[in-house]
């Protein structure tokens, strides 16, 4: 049984009230709250077990190096990778994607190639490819989403060609909530010889990730959205691919031999982890992922799907509210506008009612524009949200309507 009220107690922040009201946190898509065990684990590392990693000539360093590498193994298990050597720790999903663009992109993309992304990409999976395009001169193609926010498979097939060297695509839109048909996308891309990078920032929070089953070439996500700390992200890459790539940054910890004349580089993942990594954050992330796995990701998905269905139904009963992104099987991310109320004004009033939502373009400005808006409000679910949260949001929206 998934006892959400019990689970909420794992998150100390929900004990606090906001503006004298219950903390109705509906902005997990931006960043999730942290369970106490993650906070405790990180504290404990600093209090009792801290040293640098991979420098181990003494006990503390050996212990933390082992904890750090166990964290990598936990991430491996979380995404079902073949080996922990396929897991690179980065600062964030943003850095993971930039790493692929800078390293793999520079080495393997030519002016005659094409890269294919979707209309629904976060700026983090759009801008790096634009910048690289301007440098290398390849063509950046953008496949469409339908008006309901669903993936336009026909358009994808049309824009995918033997020139396509990379498909960089989100698993779940942070604006529309749409879950993209990744397996079909990846199969089609591979059939044309293209590599596939999955931006799993949102997907990893809501569904079990299986990189073997997906057969994606790269996959990126951020620790802070999966209930872990900030400052840590993950890049999964198939080992042969990682091994074919040059370093991204250079410095300590990523070299094999160094002389004044020449340096040879370490094998992956060390090759991509120059300098002292975010040690405690990596261990905190692993703790968060273990927490997710212990709750059961399928249980989380079931709980969130129920809430999503409930929210869609409740929203549909608010007169003048327009939901943006209504694709079948969508996850718990709800963008919306209300007739006659600017999203910013709405957020002011929701805030006073203790309800946290985000307004604006959500780092996907072209997508919000394509859906017909310049700014939208977004409520998003985490594993700790309840029907009461939705009810409070709905009540607050209805209250806001009385102001205008």
């Amino acid at each position, binding site marked *: 049984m998934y006892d959400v009220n019990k689970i909420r107690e794992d998150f100390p922040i929900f004990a606090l009230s906001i503006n004298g009201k219950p903390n109705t946190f509906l902005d997990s898509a931006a960043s999730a709250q942290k369970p106490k065990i993650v906070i405790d684990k990180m504290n404990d590392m600093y209090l009792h077990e801290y040293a640098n990693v991979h420098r181990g000539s003494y006990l503390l360093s050996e212990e933390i190096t082992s904890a750090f590498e166990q964290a990598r193994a936990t991430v491996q298990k979380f995404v079902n990778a073949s080996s922990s050597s396929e897991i690179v720790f980065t600062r964030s999903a943003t850095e993971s994607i930039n790493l692929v663009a800078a390293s793999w992109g520079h080495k393997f993309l030519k002016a005659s190639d094409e890269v294919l992304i979707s209309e629904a990409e976060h700026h983090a999976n759009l801008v790096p490819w634009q910048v690289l395009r301007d440098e290398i001169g390849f063509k950046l193609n953008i496949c469409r989403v339908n008006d309901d926010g669903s993936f336009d498979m026909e358009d994808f097939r049309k824009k995918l060609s033997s020139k396509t060297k990379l498909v960089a695509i989100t698993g779940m839109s942070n604006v529309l909530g749409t879950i993209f048909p990744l397996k079909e996308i990846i199969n089609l891309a591979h059939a044309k010889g293209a590599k596939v990078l999955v931006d799993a920032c949102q997907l990893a929070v809501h569904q079990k990730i299986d990189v073997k089953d997906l057969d994606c070439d790269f996959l990126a996500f951020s620790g802070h959205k999966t209930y872990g700390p900030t400052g840590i992200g993950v890049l999964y890459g198939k080992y042969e691919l990682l091994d074919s790539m040059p370093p991204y940054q250079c410095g300590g910890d990523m070299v094999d031999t160094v002389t004044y004349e020449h340096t040879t580089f370490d094998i992956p993942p060390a090759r991509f982890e120059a300098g002292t990594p975010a040690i405690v954050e990596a261990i905190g992330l692993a703790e968060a992922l273990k927490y997710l796995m212990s709750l059961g990701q399928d249980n989380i998905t079931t709980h969130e799907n129920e809430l999503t269905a409930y929210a869609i139904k409740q929203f549909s009963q608010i007169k003048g509210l327009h939901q943006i992104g209504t694709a079948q099987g969508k996850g718990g991310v709800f963008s919306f506008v209300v007739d006659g*109320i*600017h*999203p*910013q*004004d709405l*957020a*002011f*009033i929701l805030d*006073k009612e203790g309800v946290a939502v985000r*307004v*604006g373009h959500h780092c996907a400005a072209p997508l919000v524009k394509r859906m017909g808006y*310049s*700014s939208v409000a977004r409520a998003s679910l985490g594993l700790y949200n309840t029907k009461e949260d939705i009810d409070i949001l709905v009540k607050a929206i209805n209250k806001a309507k009385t*102001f*205008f």
Partner: protein
Amino acid sequence: MTIDELIENFSFLDTWEDKYRYLIELGEKMPPLPESYKTAPWQVKGCQSQVWLVPSKEEDRLHFLGDSDAAIVKGLISIVLLIYDNKSPSEIKAVAVDDIFAKIGLKEHLSPSRRNGLEAMVAKIRQYADIL
């Protein structure tokens, strides 16, 4: 209306609901900004709503027109303009805007992290005071 009158008006309002309703009313009463000014050069960046600010100078006094597509933001702008309009550059520099917003009970809206454009607008006004 003077600033002191405005502060007094707000002092009669006990709840945030009443304050926000009054803000919306203030925004509605603000003279409209001609559409021709709602363009990039007059836009104040860094806001979650669209905000415009148009300065002009008469003798040594600065005048401002402003607008926003968000109603509460517009009300906040009307207060900013009430504070800064028809002042000389040196008077503009001397205004303790934080204190005024604190007295009104809307201090949180001036925080740079709020991104509602107010902070950026005040910065822009002070910048205009330097260059105009």
